[in-house]
Each structure stands twice: as structure tokens, then as C-alpha cells.
């Protein structure tokens, strides 16, 4: 049973980090980014490319199969994914903003973009599964009858570090404060002298960075394939809505809740319907508490 909880938390970490990116685009750019899953996939494939280029495997440090080559790849992937996402924004969403396109147009464009990215990945890397390494998780006994996989613990630590850094960033730095201002009221933010374009760029960079980390972690514990992002998008949306769309920390909470319920579904032998479980929880929340667990009701003032 404990293993299911650990699996749920690890999977939840990945969903949570991805959902934070979703939450930032939702609140700053004001649309549901259906291409968010593909940003994770881009991050994972770029890490894969660096691992292949370096040609020394992912390495290991002590008990964790998470060596310097993998850490270096993640850092490079964060940078490259951010650049790719900024380029996509420049080519697509920037023009839609200039034309004051409706929110639905943004969503359709994102949906089309996700299809394009999935198939560009197939075109470049092929449709087959790929693996960052041939790492086989080895559990280490911690207590009498309790074993953990060191890499799982590391993933939880990385997620915690990311969330704490994000919190610090949003509450202390000027860019973070500006971002919260734009999220609440873009026009008022503008008349406060905030450069909304620059805030939008920062939002993409933060979302892409967390996604690159989440995508690579996901690839590390499972594998890569062009559909990987597409399979994560529904759990991420569910996490966003369950936690509360207006609250970044809601996305984190929602991510862990969805991760745990999916693990629970596997535990009771419903793994085939795993993808649907997230959706059902989301629907229940939409009926009972549409603003989500941590969300506030949208007001008119």
C-alpha cells in the first residue's frame, strides 16, 4: 500500500509541476493552454537529446540514479524549452493577442499547436518509445518493512524545491509582484506602468522551466514517446480545476490529489480507467465547488 502512496506522490509531483505552468498561462494569458502537455514533452525530448549528445548515460550520485549528466541536461533543457516556448508565443499567441482574438480562438490555436508539436516530435524522433537510461528502480529498506526508491524521494525533494522557489519568486521579486498584478487586472497593471509584454514573457519562461523539469522527471521514471504530453494534459487540467484555477498553489495541491487517486485506481485494479478517474474527480469538483478547493469565487468588482 505504501508503495502506491509513493507512486502517487511521484506521479503527483509531475502533474503538479505541469499544472503550475497551466495555472500561470491561465491566469496571466487567460486561456486554457491545451498545448501544455506538449511543453512537458518538448522538455523531456530536449533532455533526451542532451543525454544522447553527452553519451555518458545519466550517471549516478550515491544511491540515486540521477547523476551530473542528467542534472546538466535538465538545466540545458530548461533553457532551450524556454526559448522554444517563447518562439511559439512570438509566432502564434503574440499575433492572436495583437488581433484581440477571442478566448476560444486561443484555445483552438493551442489545441492545433499540441497536434503540431506531437507530430513534429514524431517526425524528428520517431513514434517509438525511448528511454533516458536503463535505470531500474532499486528500493532501499528504511524501516523494518518499509522500502523506498531513492530516486522517488529525490523527485519529491526536487518538486518541493521548485514549489518553494516559485513561492519566493512570486511573493518577493518585482517580476513576481507584477505577475500577480497582471493576473488580477491587466489594464490596471498597465496603468501602474507594468510592461505586460515582459510579464507575459516571464510567465512563459517560468511555465516552460517547470514543465521541462516535470517532463524530464516523467521521462526518467517512465519513458518518452510523442504522446506523453497528451496523456498528461487531462490530469493536469483536473489538478488545476480541483485545486482552484485562480490559485497557483491550488494547482500543486490538485496535482498531488490527482496523482494519489490515480495510484489508488491502480491499486484497486482499475488502471485501465486511470485517465478517466482524474476527469471524474474534476467533474465532481465542478459540480460541488466550481472555484476549486483553494480558489476564490470570481467576483465582479
Amino acid at each position: 500500500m505504501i508503495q502506491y502512496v509513493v507512486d502517487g506522490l511521484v506521479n503527483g509531483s509531475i502533474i503538479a509541476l505541469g499544472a503550475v505552468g497551466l495555472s500561470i498561462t491561465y491566469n496571466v494569458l487567460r486561456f486554457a493552454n491545451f498545448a501544455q502537455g506538449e511543453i512537458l514533452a518538448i522538455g523531456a525530448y530536449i533532455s533526451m537529446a542532451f543525454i544522447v549528445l553527452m553519451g555518458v548515460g545519466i550517471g549516478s550520485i550515491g544511491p540515486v540514479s540521477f547523476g551530473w549528466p542528467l542534472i546538466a541536461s535538465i538545466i540545458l533543457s530548461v533553457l532551450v524549452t524556454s526559448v522554444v516556448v517563447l518562439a511559439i508565443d512570438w509566432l502564434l499567441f503574440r499575433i492572436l493577442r495583437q488581433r484581440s482574438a477571442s478566448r476560444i480562438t486561443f484555445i483552438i490555436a493551442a489545441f492545433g499547436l499540441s497536434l503540431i508539436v506531437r507530430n513534429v516530435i514524431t517526425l524528428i524522433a520517431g513514434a517509438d518509445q525511448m528511454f533516458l537510461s536503463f535505470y531500474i528502480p532499486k528500493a532501499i529498506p528504511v524501516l523494518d518493512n518499509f522500502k523506498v526508491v531513492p530516486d522517488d524521494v529525490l523527485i519529491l525533494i526536487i518538486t518541493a524545491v521548485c514549489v518553494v522557489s516559485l513561492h519566493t519568486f512570486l511573493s518577493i521579486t518585482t517580476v513576481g509582484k507584477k505577475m500577480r498584478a497582471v493576473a488580477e487586472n491587466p489594464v490596471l497593471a498597465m496603468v501602474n506602468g507594468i510592461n505586460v509584454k515582459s510579464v507575459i514573457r516571464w510567465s512563459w519562461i517560468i511555465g516552460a522551466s517547470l514543465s521541462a523539469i516535470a517532463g524530464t522527471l516523467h521521462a526518467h521514471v517512465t519513458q518518452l514517446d510523442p504522446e506523453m504530453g497528451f496523456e498528461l494534459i487531462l490530469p493536469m487540467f483536473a489538478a488545476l480545476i480541483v485545486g482552484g484555477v485562480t490559485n497557483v498553489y491550488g494547482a500543486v495541491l490538485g496535482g498531488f490529489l490527482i496523482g494519489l487517486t490515480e495510484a489508488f485506481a491502480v491499486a484497486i485494479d482499475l488502471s485501465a480507467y486511470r485517465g478517466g478517474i482524474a476527469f471524474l474527480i474534476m467533474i465532481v469538483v465542478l459540480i460541488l465547488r466550481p472555484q476549486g478547493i483553494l480558489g476564490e469565487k470570481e467576483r465582479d468588482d
Partner: protein
Amino acid sequence: MIDILSFVIFFFIICSFYIISSLGLNIQYGFTGMFNVGIAGFFAVGAYTSAILTGPEYADTIFGGFQLPIILGWLCAIAVSGLAGVLVGLVTLRLREDFLAISTFGIAICIQLVALNWESVTRGPNGLYAIPKPFSRFLDSAVMSNLFYLIICIVTIVAIYYGLERVVKSPWGRVLRSIREDEVAAEALGKNVFMYRLQAFVLGCGIMGLAGAMYANFVRFISPQDFLPIFTIQVYVMLIVGGKGNNLGAIVGAIVIWALWSASDSLINFIVAPDYQTQAAALRIIIVGVVLVLMLLFKPSGILPEKKHLSS
């Protein structure tokens, strides 16, 4: 000669399913501004409903084999897809449009999961086969039975087209457009925005279900692989290229895009070596995605832009 004729008939039959779906989407997206990302799902519900109701008994299923008349299967397909639309709509149509998009996307994935895993009804990945095709018992030539099928398709499309044209020109249709343009103003006029949106949503889902049912009874074999998200995107491309908010545009767009899609298929088979078929297929989907995005960016009103209706 007969080869070309049979190809043309086949082409237009398949095209009809897209045309009908595109007309169904037009009432939701084109006229009312609702974004349904689950077209493939509602289409699949219609297809499975008709297949189970009109199809033969299978040794390995616990439910089905009713062998009902095909027309009854189609009517039930409309009803069941419409019902699915009611369920989704009740939960999400009161909320921001993003939630409708996310929920319909989720519904489509769940429908896919059910089709894949509920083997005692859907036979899972093996699919349902030997679904009856109308008139095939009386017509021994495949070309003749296809010709009859095409006639059924055309009659259906014409009926839906005229039905929708009447609907959108009615006071009801005017309310839908006013909701799309300005929900708050429509609400201020005392219209129950939610009920209007729900009705339009359910009508669209029912039409998509009919398209799915007609597909099932034509191809005679369905499996979860037939209802992938690419279908949803294709229908959007068709409607947006043709002209959202214009029923004739929905039809023209479906024909144009389906022609391009089929032509690119033949072209790829012809020029691309078998080893690169995966890449070629990916490239073809990329092109569809790029066409969609370019249309959104540079010609959002499509080939046949919406006619300006006099507002009431």
C-alpha cells in the same frame, strides 16, 4: 470508368460524415460560440450506439445483437449522443468557456477509454464488425449499394442544412447569436442564456452522433482507433476554413479539406518510401495543424464568411 465512379461515390460518402459533423459543430461553435473539443467522442457514442442496436450478436459480448432497423439505430444514436451532451452541458455550460473545452476534451478521452476497456460490450480494441449496411441485402453490387448510401447521405445533409438554416433564422437562432456576441447583454434582455446554450449544445451533439451512426453502418467495422482527437481537429479545420457561422461554409469547408486530405494521402503513398510512412503521416497531420493555425491568424472568417444577419 466504373472505378472512378465508385471512388467518387466513396469519397463523397466519407465526406458526408465530416459535413454532418461540421454542421453540428457550426451550431455550437459557429452560432453560439461554444468550444467543444470532444467531437470525436460524441461521434463515437453515435457510432457505438447504432452498431450495438443494429448489429449482430457477438459470441463474446453480454449486451447487443438487437438487430433493430437501421433508422431506429440512427435515431437512438442521436438521442444517446444528445443525452451525453446534456450531461456535459449541465455541468459546464454555466462556467467559463475554458471549462467546457476541458470537460468535452475529458469526455472524449473517457469515451475512448470505455470503448477500449468495456470489452463485454464494445469488444475493446477488436471492435465491432459486421454492422449492417442499408440495402446491402437487396443490392448485390457494391457500387449500387454505395450509390444508395450516398443518396441517403445527401438527403440527410440537405435535411439538416435546411433545418439548421430555418433554426438559425428563427428568433431562437437570433438569441444564440446575441449570446455569442454579448452574453451579458443577452442576459439583460431576460433570455435564459444557460438554457439556450444547452439546447444548442445538445442539438450539435445529436447531429454529431448521427454522423457517427451513419459512419458505423457504412464502414461496417468500428474500433476505438476510429475516434482519435485528429478527427476533432479535422472538423474544426473544415468549419474554420469553410466559414464558421455559415452552414454552406461548413459544407464547403468539409469538402475542400477532405479532398486535400485524401489527395495528400495518395500523394504520400505514391512518393514516400514505405520505411518513412510514419514520418509522412506525421507530416500530413502537421500540415492540417498549420492550416488551422494559419486560418486562425490570417483568415478567421473563412472562405464563406458569416452572412450579416440583421440584429433584432
